[in-house]
Protein backbone atom coordinates (compact mmCIF):
# COMPACT_ATOMS: atom_id res chain seq x y z
CA UNK A 1 0.00 0.00 0.00
CA UNK A 2 1.35 3.43 -0.93
CA UNK A 3 0.53 5.88 1.81
CA UNK A 4 0.32 9.64 2.31
CA UNK A 5 1.46 11.27 5.53
CA UNK A 6 0.73 14.80 6.80
CA UNK A 7 4.42 15.49 7.54
CA UNK A 8 5.22 18.37 5.15
CA UNK A 9 2.19 20.50 5.98
CA UNK A 10 2.19 19.54 9.64
CA UNK A 11 5.73 20.88 9.83
CA UNK A 12 4.53 24.04 8.05
CA UNK A 13 1.68 24.39 10.55
CA UNK A 14 3.94 23.89 13.57
CA UNK A 15 6.44 26.41 12.23
CA UNK A 16 3.79 29.12 11.73
CA UNK A 17 1.78 28.75 14.95
CA UNK A 18 4.36 30.76 16.98
CA UNK A 19 4.50 33.41 14.24
CA UNK A 20 0.71 33.67 14.26
CA UNK A 21 0.70 33.89 18.04
CA UNK A 22 3.30 36.65 18.01
CA UNK A 23 0.95 38.63 15.80
CA UNK A 24 3.54 40.80 14.06
CA UNK A 25 3.77 39.15 10.64
CA UNK A 26 0.33 38.54 9.01
CA UNK A 27 1.86 35.60 7.15
CA UNK A 28 1.74 33.62 10.41
CA UNK A 29 -2.05 33.57 10.55
CA UNK A 30 -2.32 33.13 6.78
CA UNK A 31 0.04 30.15 6.66
CA UNK A 32 -1.59 28.45 9.66
CA UNK A 33 -4.87 28.65 7.74
CA UNK A 34 -3.30 27.36 4.52
CA UNK A 35 -1.73 24.41 6.34
CA UNK A 36 -4.98 23.73 8.22
CA UNK A 37 -6.95 23.60 4.98
CA UNK A 38 -4.41 21.40 3.23
CA UNK A 39 -4.33 18.97 6.13
CA UNK A 40 -8.12 18.85 6.22
CA UNK A 41 -8.20 17.96 2.54
CA UNK A 42 -5.76 15.12 3.23
CA UNK A 43 -8.02 13.71 5.96
CA UNK A 44 -11.09 14.08 3.76
CA UNK A 45 -9.28 12.27 0.96
CA UNK A 46 -8.60 9.47 3.44
CA UNK A 47 -12.30 9.41 4.42
CA UNK A 48 -11.35 10.17 8.03
CA UNK A 49 -13.75 11.67 10.51
CA UNK A 50 -11.58 12.48 13.52
CA UNK A 51 -9.55 15.75 13.36
CA UNK A 52 -11.42 17.11 10.31
CA UNK A 53 -13.66 19.30 12.44
CA UNK A 54 -10.68 20.42 14.54
CA UNK A 55 -8.88 21.66 11.42
CA UNK A 56 -12.03 23.44 10.25
CA UNK A 57 -12.30 25.07 13.69
CA UNK A 58 -8.68 26.25 13.53
CA UNK A 59 -9.11 27.83 10.10
CA UNK A 60 -12.33 29.56 11.19
CA UNK A 61 -10.87 30.74 14.50
CA UNK A 62 -8.32 32.78 12.53
CA UNK A 63 -10.58 33.87 9.67
CA UNK A 64 -11.60 37.22 11.14
CA UNK A 65 -7.99 38.17 11.77
CA UNK A 66 -7.07 37.15 8.22
CA UNK A 67 -9.99 39.07 6.67
CA UNK A 68 -8.90 42.20 8.51
CA UNK A 69 -5.27 41.72 7.45
CA UNK A 70 -6.38 41.47 3.82
CA UNK A 71 -8.58 44.51 4.25
CA UNK A 72 -5.65 46.53 5.55
CA UNK A 73 -3.76 45.64 2.37
CA UNK A 74 -6.69 46.57 0.15
CA UNK A 75 -7.14 49.91 1.94
CA UNK A 76 -3.43 50.66 1.81
CA UNK A 77 -3.49 49.92 -1.92
CA UNK A 78 -6.40 52.31 -2.31
CA UNK A 79 -4.23 55.15 -1.02
CA UNK A 80 -5.16 55.47 2.67
CA UNK A 81 -7.52 54.41 5.41
CA UNK A 82 -10.30 56.79 4.34
CA UNK A 83 -13.10 57.29 6.81
CA UNK A 84 -11.67 57.88 10.31
CA UNK A 85 -14.52 56.23 12.16
CA UNK A 86 -14.24 53.24 9.86
CA UNK A 87 -10.52 52.95 10.62
CA UNK A 88 -11.16 53.14 14.38
CA UNK A 89 -13.90 50.53 14.09
CA UNK A 90 -11.55 48.26 12.16
CA UNK A 91 -8.88 48.58 14.84
CA UNK A 92 -11.42 47.57 17.49
CA UNK A 93 -12.48 44.58 15.40
CA UNK A 94 -8.86 43.62 14.88
CA UNK A 95 -8.22 43.65 18.64
CA UNK A 96 -11.25 41.40 19.25
CA UNK A 97 -10.23 39.07 16.46
CA UNK A 98 -6.71 38.95 17.83
CA UNK A 99 -8.04 37.96 21.26
CA UNK A 100 -10.08 35.10 19.75
CA UNK A 101 -7.13 33.96 17.64
CA UNK A 102 -4.81 33.89 20.65
CA UNK A 103 -7.34 31.83 22.61
CA UNK A 104 -7.43 29.27 19.80
CA UNK A 105 -3.67 29.22 19.33
CA UNK A 106 -3.05 28.47 23.02
CA UNK A 107 -5.95 26.06 23.51
CA UNK A 108 -5.80 22.38 24.53
CA UNK A 109 -7.67 21.70 21.29
CA UNK A 110 -4.76 22.94 19.17
CA UNK A 111 -2.22 21.21 21.44
CA UNK A 112 -4.20 17.99 20.97
CA UNK A 113 -4.59 18.53 17.24
CA UNK A 114 -0.85 18.94 16.66
CA UNK A 115 -0.09 15.93 18.85
CA UNK A 116 -2.66 13.78 17.05
CA UNK A 117 -1.38 14.78 13.59
CA UNK A 118 2.15 13.83 14.67
CA UNK A 119 1.04 10.22 15.12
CA UNK A 120 -1.69 10.02 12.46
CA UNK A 121 -2.03 6.67 10.74
CA UNK A 122 -1.03 7.03 7.05
CA UNK A 123 -3.69 7.63 4.39
CA UNK A 124 -4.08 4.88 1.80
CA UNK A 125 -3.28 6.41 -1.62
CA UNK A 126 -5.90 4.27 -3.39
CA UNK A 127 -8.59 5.67 -1.08
CA UNK A 128 -7.22 9.19 -1.62
CA UNK A 129 -7.44 8.82 -5.42
CA UNK A 130 -11.10 7.96 -5.06
CA UNK A 131 -11.48 11.15 -3.01
CA UNK A 132 -9.71 13.14 -5.72
CA UNK A 133 -12.30 12.02 -8.28
CA UNK A 134 -15.06 13.19 -5.93
CA UNK A 135 -13.33 16.56 -5.44
CA UNK A 136 -13.11 16.97 -9.21
CA UNK A 137 -16.82 16.19 -9.63
CA UNK A 138 -17.69 18.71 -6.91
CA UNK A 139 -15.69 21.45 -8.62
CA UNK A 140 -17.41 20.81 -11.95
CA UNK A 141 -20.78 20.90 -10.19
CA UNK A 142 -19.88 24.28 -8.68
CA UNK A 143 -18.90 25.54 -12.14
CA UNK A 144 -22.29 24.42 -13.48
CA UNK A 145 -23.94 26.25 -10.56
CA UNK A 146 -22.00 29.39 -11.47
CA UNK A 147 -23.08 29.21 -15.11
CA UNK A 148 -26.69 28.75 -13.96
CA UNK A 149 -26.39 31.64 -11.52
CA UNK A 150 -25.66 34.10 -14.35
CA UNK A 151 -29.39 34.47 -14.77
CA UNK A 152 -30.20 34.86 -11.09
CA UNK A 153 -29.60 38.30 -9.55
CA UNK A 154 -27.78 38.02 -6.21
CA UNK A 155 -26.75 34.40 -6.77
CA UNK A 156 -23.47 35.18 -8.49
CA UNK A 157 -21.48 36.02 -5.31
CA UNK A 158 -22.27 32.74 -3.49
CA UNK A 159 -21.71 30.80 -6.71
CA UNK A 160 -18.23 32.32 -7.20
CA UNK A 161 -17.46 31.67 -3.53
CA UNK A 162 -18.60 28.04 -3.80
CA UNK A 163 -16.49 27.50 -6.90
CA UNK A 164 -13.44 29.06 -5.24
CA UNK A 165 -13.73 26.70 -2.27
CA UNK A 166 -14.24 23.65 -4.48
CA UNK A 167 -11.25 24.66 -6.62
CA UNK A 168 -9.09 25.07 -3.56
CA UNK A 169 -10.02 21.59 -2.32
CA UNK A 170 -9.35 20.12 -5.75
CA UNK A 171 -5.98 21.85 -6.05
CA UNK A 172 -4.87 20.71 -2.61
CA UNK A 173 -6.08 17.17 -3.37
CA UNK A 174 -4.02 17.21 -6.58
CA UNK A 175 -1.00 18.44 -4.65
CA UNK A 176 -1.27 15.63 -2.08
CA UNK A 177 -1.34 13.09 -4.88
CA UNK A 178 1.44 14.70 -6.92
CA UNK A 179 -0.88 15.73 -9.77
CA UNK A 180 -0.41 19.03 -11.66
CA UNK A 181 -2.51 21.94 -10.43
CA UNK A 182 -1.04 25.13 -11.97
CA UNK A 183 -4.15 25.93 -14.02
CA UNK A 184 -6.32 25.54 -10.97
CA UNK A 185 -4.15 27.95 -9.00
CA UNK A 186 -4.47 30.63 -11.67
CA UNK A 187 -8.26 30.36 -11.64
CA UNK A 188 -8.37 30.21 -7.85
CA UNK A 189 -6.30 33.41 -7.61
CA UNK A 190 -8.62 35.21 -10.01
CA UNK A 191 -11.62 34.15 -7.94
CA UNK A 192 -9.73 35.15 -4.79
CA UNK A 193 -9.50 38.77 -5.93
CA UNK A 194 -13.26 38.81 -6.43
CA UNK A 195 -13.94 37.24 -3.03
CA UNK A 196 -11.60 39.71 -1.28
CA UNK A 197 -13.69 42.61 -2.58
CA UNK A 198 -16.85 40.78 -1.48
CA UNK A 199 -15.36 40.37 2.02
CA UNK A 200 -14.59 44.10 2.11
CA UNK A 201 -18.15 44.91 1.12
CA UNK A 202 -19.48 42.72 3.95
CA UNK A 203 -17.31 44.59 6.45
CA UNK A 204 -18.41 47.98 5.16
CA UNK A 205 -22.05 46.92 5.50
CA UNK A 206 -21.36 45.63 9.03
CA UNK A 207 -19.80 48.99 9.88
CA UNK A 208 -22.92 50.76 8.62
CA UNK A 209 -25.15 48.55 10.77
CA UNK A 210 -23.19 49.23 13.95
CA UNK A 211 -22.41 52.91 13.38
CA UNK A 212 -25.37 54.13 11.34
CA UNK A 213 -22.95 55.70 8.84
CA UNK A 214 -24.01 56.23 5.24
CA UNK A 215 -21.88 53.85 3.22
CA UNK A 216 -24.02 53.69 0.10
CA UNK A 217 -21.36 55.27 -2.15
CA UNK A 218 -18.65 52.88 -0.92
CA UNK A 219 -20.95 49.88 -1.31
CA UNK A 220 -21.86 50.96 -4.83
CA UNK A 221 -18.17 51.20 -5.77
CA UNK A 222 -17.44 47.78 -4.28
CA UNK A 223 -20.42 46.22 -6.06
CA UNK A 224 -19.25 47.73 -9.34
CA UNK A 225 -15.74 46.39 -8.75
CA UNK A 226 -17.13 42.88 -8.14
CA UNK A 227 -19.36 43.06 -11.20
CA UNK A 228 -16.40 44.12 -13.35
CA UNK A 229 -14.21 41.30 -12.02
CA UNK A 230 -17.02 38.76 -12.47
CA UNK A 231 -17.74 39.94 -16.02
CA UNK A 232 -14.04 39.72 -16.86
CA UNK A 233 -13.92 36.12 -15.60
CA UNK A 234 -17.13 35.04 -17.28
CA UNK A 235 -16.04 36.61 -20.57
CA UNK A 236 -12.99 34.34 -20.68
CA UNK A 237 -14.37 30.79 -20.74
CA UNK A 238 -10.84 29.57 -21.38
CA UNK A 239 -10.18 30.32 -17.71
CA UNK A 240 -12.56 27.51 -16.78
CA UNK A 241 -11.25 25.04 -19.36
CA UNK A 242 -9.10 23.46 -16.69
CA UNK A 243 -12.28 22.03 -15.15
CA UNK A 244 -13.80 20.70 -18.36
Amino acid at each position, binding site marked *: MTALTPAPWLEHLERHVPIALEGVDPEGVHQVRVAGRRLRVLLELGERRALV*EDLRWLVRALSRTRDLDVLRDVLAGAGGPGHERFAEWLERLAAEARHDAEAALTSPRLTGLLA*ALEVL*SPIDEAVARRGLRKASQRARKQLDALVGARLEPGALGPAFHGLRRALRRLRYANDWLGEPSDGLKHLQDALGALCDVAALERLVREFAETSGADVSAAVARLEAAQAALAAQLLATPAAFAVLR
Partner: protein
Amino acid sequence: MDLFLIRHAIAEDGADDAARPLSDEGAKKFSRAVRGLDALGLRFDRVLHSPKRRAVETAERLGPLAADADFEVTSLLAEPPSDELLSHLHGRSVALVGHEPYLSALLAWLVVGAPDAGNFALKKGGVAHLSGEPQPGGMRLVALYPPKTLRELG
Protein backbone atom coordinates in the same frame (compact mmCIF):
# COMPACT_ATOMS: atom_id res chain seq x y z
CA MET B 1 -26.29 15.23 30.13
CA ASP B 2 -25.50 11.62 29.29
CA LEU B 3 -21.77 11.12 29.41
CA PHE B 4 -19.99 8.02 28.10
CA LEU B 5 -16.42 7.38 29.23
CA ILE B 6 -14.83 5.08 26.67
CA ARG B 7 -11.41 3.58 27.17
CA HIS B 8 -9.45 3.13 23.93
CA ALA B 9 -9.50 -0.34 22.36
CA ILE B 10 -6.59 -2.80 22.57
CA ALA B 11 -3.44 -1.35 21.00
CA GLU B 12 -0.12 -2.69 19.80
CA ASP B 13 2.95 -2.37 22.00
CA GLY B 14 5.54 0.25 21.09
CA ALA B 15 8.25 2.47 22.42
CA ASP B 16 6.45 5.67 21.45
CA ASP B 17 3.32 5.53 23.61
CA ALA B 18 1.48 8.29 21.73
CA ALA B 19 2.01 6.54 18.38
CA ARG B 20 0.72 3.08 19.28
CA PRO B 21 -2.05 2.06 16.83
CA LEU B 22 -4.94 -0.29 17.60
CA SER B 23 -4.04 -3.90 16.99
CA ASP B 24 -6.05 -5.73 14.32
CA GLU B 25 -7.72 -7.71 17.08
CA GLY B 26 -8.43 -4.54 19.09
CA ALA B 27 -9.97 -2.81 16.07
CA LYS B 28 -12.18 -5.79 15.25
CA LYS B 29 -13.30 -6.28 18.84
CA PHE B 30 -14.12 -2.61 19.27
CA SER B 31 -16.12 -2.51 16.03
CA ARG B 32 -18.23 -5.34 17.47
CA ALA B 33 -18.57 -3.42 20.75
CA VAL B 34 -19.82 -0.42 18.76
CA ARG B 35 -22.51 -2.66 17.28
CA GLY B 36 -23.44 -3.52 20.87
CA LEU B 37 -23.74 0.18 21.73
CA ASP B 38 -25.83 0.56 18.60
CA ALA B 39 -28.10 -2.29 19.76
CA LEU B 40 -28.60 -0.37 23.01
CA GLY B 41 -29.77 2.58 20.94
CA LEU B 42 -26.96 4.89 22.06
CA ARG B 43 -26.08 7.93 19.95
CA PHE B 44 -23.61 10.78 20.51
CA ASP B 45 -23.84 14.43 19.57
CA ARG B 46 -20.25 15.14 20.66
CA VAL B 47 -17.16 12.97 20.68
CA LEU B 48 -14.14 14.29 22.57
CA HIS B 49 -10.96 12.26 22.33
CA SER B 50 -7.33 12.22 23.37
CA PRO B 51 -4.67 12.94 20.71
CA LYS B 52 -2.94 9.59 21.19
CA ARG B 53 -3.23 7.46 18.10
CA ARG B 54 -5.07 4.59 19.78
CA ALA B 55 -7.69 7.04 21.07
CA VAL B 56 -8.06 8.73 17.67
CA GLU B 57 -8.51 5.34 16.01
CA THR B 58 -11.04 4.30 18.66
CA ALA B 59 -12.99 7.56 18.24
CA GLU B 60 -12.99 7.08 14.47
CA ARG B 61 -14.81 3.77 14.96
CA LEU B 62 -17.66 5.50 16.81
CA GLY B 63 -18.78 7.01 13.50
CA PRO B 64 -21.92 4.85 13.14
CA LEU B 65 -23.17 6.20 16.50
CA ALA B 66 -22.19 9.79 15.79
CA ALA B 67 -23.57 10.65 12.36
CA ASP B 68 -24.16 14.33 13.17
CA ALA B 69 -21.70 14.64 16.03
CA ASP B 70 -18.92 17.16 16.47
CA PHE B 71 -15.59 15.41 16.92
CA GLU B 72 -13.06 17.29 19.01
CA VAL B 73 -9.53 16.41 20.02
CA THR B 74 -8.19 17.72 23.30
CA SER B 75 -4.93 17.25 25.15
CA LEU B 76 -6.98 17.40 28.37
CA LEU B 77 -7.95 13.75 27.90
CA ALA B 78 -4.32 12.64 27.93
CA GLU B 79 -3.70 13.95 31.43
CA PRO B 80 -5.35 13.76 34.87
CA PRO B 81 -8.90 15.16 34.89
CA SER B 82 -9.08 18.88 35.56
CA ASP B 83 -11.58 21.69 36.04
CA GLU B 84 -10.69 22.80 32.52
CA LEU B 85 -11.81 19.41 31.17
CA LEU B 86 -15.12 19.71 33.04
CA SER B 87 -15.64 23.16 31.50
CA HIS B 88 -15.48 21.51 28.06
CA LEU B 89 -18.27 19.06 28.85
CA HIS B 90 -21.44 20.30 27.25
CA GLY B 91 -23.96 18.66 24.97
CA ARG B 92 -26.78 16.19 25.34
CA SER B 93 -25.01 12.88 24.74
CA VAL B 94 -21.23 13.15 24.92
CA ALA B 95 -18.57 10.46 24.44
CA LEU B 96 -15.08 10.86 25.92
CA VAL B 97 -12.41 8.56 24.51
CA GLY B 98 -9.36 8.40 26.71
CA HIS B 99 -7.02 6.43 28.92
CA GLU B 100 -6.57 4.88 32.30
CA PRO B 101 -6.09 5.81 35.07
CA TYR B 102 -7.53 9.20 34.05
CA LEU B 103 -10.98 7.93 33.02
CA SER B 104 -11.49 6.04 36.29
CA ALA B 105 -10.39 9.13 38.20
CA LEU B 106 -12.82 11.26 36.20
CA LEU B 107 -15.61 8.78 36.84
CA ALA B 108 -14.93 8.81 40.60
CA TRP B 109 -14.71 12.60 40.61
CA LEU B 110 -18.01 13.05 38.77
CA VAL B 111 -19.91 10.38 40.70
CA VAL B 112 -18.41 10.44 44.19
CA GLY B 113 -16.82 13.88 44.20
CA ALA B 114 -13.22 12.71 44.68
CA PRO B 115 -10.87 11.51 41.90
CA ASP B 116 -9.23 8.96 44.20
CA ALA B 117 -12.49 7.49 45.50
CA GLY B 118 -12.05 4.03 44.03
CA ASN B 119 -11.07 1.93 41.06
CA PHE B 120 -13.87 1.36 38.56
CA ALA B 121 -11.82 -1.04 36.42
CA LEU B 122 -12.66 0.26 32.97
CA LYS B 123 -11.30 -2.33 30.56
CA LYS B 124 -9.91 -1.46 27.11
CA GLY B 125 -12.92 -0.88 24.88
CA GLY B 126 -15.18 -0.67 27.94
CA VAL B 127 -17.78 2.06 28.46
CA ALA B 128 -19.13 3.81 31.55
CA HIS B 129 -22.47 5.60 31.16
CA LEU B 130 -23.06 8.54 33.50
CA SER B 131 -25.98 10.91 33.74
CA GLY B 132 -26.42 14.30 35.41
CA GLU B 133 -24.48 17.55 35.67
CA PRO B 134 -20.78 17.30 34.73
CA GLN B 135 -19.44 18.62 38.02
CA PRO B 136 -17.79 16.85 40.97
CA GLY B 137 -20.38 14.56 42.54
CA GLY B 138 -23.00 15.78 40.07
CA MET B 139 -23.47 12.57 38.07
CA ARG B 140 -24.75 9.07 38.74
CA LEU B 141 -23.39 5.91 37.25
CA VAL B 142 -26.05 4.45 34.97
CA ALA B 143 -24.11 1.45 33.66
CA LEU B 144 -20.63 0.05 33.35
CA TYR B 145 -20.33 -2.01 30.17
CA PRO B 146 -17.42 -4.45 29.94
CA PRO B 147 -16.26 -4.81 26.31
CA LYS B 148 -17.19 -8.48 26.19
CA THR B 149 -20.79 -7.68 27.13
CA LEU B 150 -20.98 -5.06 24.41
CA ARG B 151 -19.59 -7.49 21.82
CA GLU B 152 -22.20 -10.06 22.80
CA LEU B 153 -24.94 -7.45 22.46
CA GLY B 154 -23.67 -6.65 18.96
